[in-house]
């Protein structure tokens, strides 16, 4: 049961639980069953320790300083960038831009890459299962620049038809913006194929990797994707930081996003010239301590057998999927083959919020609502769903607790 027991090639979820202080918490006297990982994951003490130790021994602002701590902090910050680079399989470290989160990473592309390239009538292709983070920035370009949003529907099981994506890409398409994994359905999109089809028509692809980076082994070079985003807090890392991967050729040609310190080459009263990427896109003091936390989270994941983690999460999903079949009042939304460990469902005669409240009293944290994916809700004709999303530290026993709680909820609410 110690953190050190992860030496086998397999993976012991119960052992890893000891790494996550919050998991030993009780909620209303019941053990916490944290199934809200899709919204945000809990953080292992390795991450908390790394951030605290760094703050207590090596902290300073980064870049431009000559003194010892400045050097240390800069080294750590840039080492974090290389950790992210390797994690995503990027060719160059300057292809990684630190952002405040996944949302800002997408906005950066919208403001700095796409906005200056949009003529009225130009099209952006996206799927109906996008998170609002991968919708609203494009709506801005519709409102402000006259872009047209081309929505690709999904199949009833939540899977994406590559032909439908292909058909949506026209001579007017300026970007395909697509999630790698749906935060509601768990659907894994055929990213490499989408990229191949889009590139065949000369169109770049942005993949929203907020969920993808958690559940898939990402290799941006193999995917050949143009932009890929991630957010640390879903990756067992801290809040306040995310990253954008962008191909060098794109980043080099992009105008800055925020203006401020660190992103300039020279500022005079009359003109300003900008630094090269990634600095150009990192105005101001960056999330320094958070970068150390993000690197620690990635190190933590790399210290596990990630294939085994994936298998474990998949087992939880299958187990839960089977388990809910007993409830004829429950409809699972999203059953795409190979999907990630996210289970959304609708319950007849019970509103998701009421259900979540009852589950909460049993210690089970699930999310109820539209999951920042309103067009998807509309697609399935529901106002909201209940979502259980599983992380590496969850167990079958916890799924059992949820299943019992669901049965109980039925008794109370109907």
């Amino acid at each position, binding site marked *: 049961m110690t953190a050190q027991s992860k030496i086998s090639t397999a993976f012991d979820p119960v052992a890893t639980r000891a790494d996550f202080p919050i998991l030993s918490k009780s909620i209303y006297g019941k053990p916490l069953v944290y199934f809200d990982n899709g919204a945000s994951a809990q953080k292992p003490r390795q991450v908390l320790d790394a951030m605290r130790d760094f703050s207590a021994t090596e902290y300073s602002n980064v870049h431009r300083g000559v003194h010892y701590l400045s050097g240390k902090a800069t080294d750590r910050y840039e080492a974090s960038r290389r950790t992210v680079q390797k994690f995503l399989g990027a060719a160059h470290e300057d292809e990684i831009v630190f952002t405040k989160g996944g949302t800002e990473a997408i906005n950066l592309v919208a403001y700095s890459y796409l906005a200056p390239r949009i003529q009225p009538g130009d099209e952006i292709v996206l799927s109906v299962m996008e998170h609002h983070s991968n919708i609203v920035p494009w709506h801005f370009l519709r409102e402000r620049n006259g872009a047209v949003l081309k929505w690709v529907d999904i199949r009833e099981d939540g899977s994406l038809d590559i032909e439908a994506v292909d058909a949506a890409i026209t001579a007017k398409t300026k970007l395909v913006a697509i999630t790698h994994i749906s935060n509601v359905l768990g659907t894994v999109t055929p990213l490499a194929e989408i990229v191949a089809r889009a590139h065949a028509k000369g169109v770049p692809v942005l993949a929203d990797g907020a969920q993808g980076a958690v559940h898939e082994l990402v290799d941006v070079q193999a995917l050949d994707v143009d932009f890929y985003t991630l957010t640390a807090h879903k990756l067992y890392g801290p809040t306040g930081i995310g990253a954008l991967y962008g191909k060098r050729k794109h980043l080099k040609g992009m105008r800055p996003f925020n203006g401020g310190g660190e992103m300039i080459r020279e500022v005079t009263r009359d003109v300003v010239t900008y630094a090269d990427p990634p600095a150009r896109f990192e105005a101001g003091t960056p999330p320094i301590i958070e970068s150390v936390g993000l690197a620690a989270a990635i190190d933590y994941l790399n210290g596990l057998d990630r294939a085994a983690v994936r298998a474990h999460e998949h087992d939880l999903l299958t187990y839960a999927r089977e388990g809910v079949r007993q409830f004829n009042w429950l409809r699972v939304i999203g059953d795409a083959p190979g999907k990630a460990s996210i289970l959304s469902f609708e319950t007849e005669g019970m509103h*998701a*919020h009421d259900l979540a409240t*009852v589950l909460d*009293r049993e210690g089970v944290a699930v999310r109820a*609502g*539209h999951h920042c994916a309103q067009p998807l809700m509309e697609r399935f004709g529901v106002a*909201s769903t209940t979502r259980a999303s599983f992380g590496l530290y969850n167990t079958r026993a916890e799924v059992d607790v949820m299943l019992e709680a669901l049965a109980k909820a039925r008794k*109370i*609410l109907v």
Partner: protein
Amino acid sequence: MDDTLRELYQDVILDHSKHPRHFGKLVDATNTAQGHNPLCGDRVTMYLKVDASGRIADIAFEGKGCAISQASASLMTDMLVGRTVAEAEKLMGGFLHLVKGEDAGDLDPDDRERLDVMAGVSAFPMRVKCATLAWHTMKSALESGETAKTE
């Protein structure tokens, strides 16, 4: 079985939520307002008919939402119809305190008893907004007809 849960989802509440009173539209409404709970995306539309003497002659509401918000809307409409605007406002003020577990002031004992079925919400701070959505919307409808929302 969890007592606070039973208290929250007591039969009266579930009954109101499953069979909401005054559900529907009012074609001849004098005041209307829309309410929205950004937490869960729930919406409610209130239709009022206030007569010349300042009395709420008729009420109706439409919307989708959780059991708490539906029951609360149903209970409210049931209680407010026939009252003067001033009376309605007093009741609304009392309710908004009650569901937060605060002192509801000197309500009529009968009113107090009817409202008490909602008092269990105060043990669920995350759900207070569900309970107050309809009431805030009613307030908007009475005041200006603008869109209300629970913050």
